[in-house]
């Protein structure tokens, strides 16, 4: 082996790399917050909502869960302008991630809602709460607690999947890596660095989600 490793490019490429990291982090934060919010709304519809709305949400969920993320992204960025809906690369990437996570998290959260004992709904009703008040104040938090590990995994999957937004020239971490590699021709070094950054981001995100769960859900004082 005569290959000589060279990481000297790192210093001058640091600004590009940092911008890529910032955009990836931004994408996942926005995607996670709005995606899960959309997922909660859709899960409510599918589990407890008005009958007429159920087929609408079911169609959305099945459409997204049975098509590739890259195609969804292309459709939003290249397809929608034909209808006069134009947006920046970053907006398209954000929207695609929200829509994608919304569909997957809908099904995960719905499972949590449907595992709620009937007595919880009845207790809410007997205290004169409306069905929606019961859902919001009684059912939702324990339902999220039940499926929190699965939901956390899905958020991490979406974060890693965000790499494909570089395909529409959204300047995320993968875009930055490709850009740097095309300048320095140091493919091994560039991609090992970006791999490690993704790894670090994923671990950090999992920790963040675990911490959020720790704050959101009640814990026993003892034990």
């Amino acid at each position: 082996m005569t290959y000589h490793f060279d990481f000297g490019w790192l210093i001058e490429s640091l600004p590009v790399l940092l911008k890529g990291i910032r955009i990836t982090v931004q994408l996942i934060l926005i995607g996670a917050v709005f995606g899960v919010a959309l997922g909660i709304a859709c899960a409510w519809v599918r589990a407890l909502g008005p009958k007429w709305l159920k087929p609408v949400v079911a169609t959305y969920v099945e459409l997204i869960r049975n098509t590739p993320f890259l195609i969804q992204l292309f459709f939003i960025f290249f397809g929608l302008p034909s209808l006069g809906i134009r947006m920046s690369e970053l907006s398209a990437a954000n929207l695609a991630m929200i829509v994608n996570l919304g569909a997957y998290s809908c099904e995960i959260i719905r499972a949590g809602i449907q595992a709620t004992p009937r007595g919880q709904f009845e207790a809410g009703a007997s205290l004169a709460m409306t069905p929606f008040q019961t859902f919001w104040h009684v059912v939702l938090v324990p339902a999220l607690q039940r499926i929190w590990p699965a939901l956390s995994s899905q958020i991490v999957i979406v974060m890693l999947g965000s790499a494909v937004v570089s395909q529409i020239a959204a300047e995320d971490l993968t875009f930055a890596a490709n850009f740097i590699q095309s300048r320095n021709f140091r493919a091994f070094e560039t991609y090992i660095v970006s791999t490690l950054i993704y790894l670090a981001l994923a671990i950090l995100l999992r920790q963040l989600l675990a911490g959020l769960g720790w704050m959101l859900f009640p814990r026993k004082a003892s034990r």
Partner: protein
Amino acid sequence: MSLIAITEVKKRFGDNEVLKGISIDVAPGEVVAIIGKSGSGKSTLLRCINGLETIDEGSIVVAGAQFLPDEVHLKALRLKVGMIFQQFNLFPHLTAGGNVMLSQMVVKKTPKRDAEAVARKMLDRVGLAHKFDALPDELSGGQQQRVAIARALAMQPIALLCDEITSALDPELVAEVLAVVKELAAEGMTLVMVTHEMRFARDVCSRVVFMHQGRVHEIGAPEDVFANPRTPELRQFLGVQ
């Protein structure tokens, strides 16, 4: 005037008629025990009074509030009658205090401080003032059921429905729950309870309703019902010859 007027109530689940025309009037301050075999319709009747089940025929009026299956009427009805369940049904993510505060704040829009004051008072009333910050998981079954009673009381109902509230409890915990119920009865709360605690029914209740196959089979003062059962079905249920 009766507080709860149940008139000719019929209820079907598909082809199965569970209530075949029930009429019972409950006066204010009365403590009524409903006894009977499982499948006799006693729990269904109780659930109808609180609107957890709709009725097919007849009428249920609680202190002037007619049972109608729409949100406005249901809310009015449920503000008047509280319900306590066999499985406690405490909200697992809230503390004992939070359980008692929630519906006050959500339904009655009571400010948090006032709701908390009421919650402390109600928990004190069931002997659990010191458990305000405990989660349901950290409480025994008897304590959980007492929190459920406090939670129902916090809405200031004029009547309480108790659906086999001691059936899921270990025998040694039954007494602490029944003591609370007994105290409520002594304070004049109107109670309708489905129960298997015959001794409690005999000691505390003003009237006993024996249900059999979806009908009121016998009704009367506990002395009469327990000492002189008139029908063979009740004699068999009570295990007397």
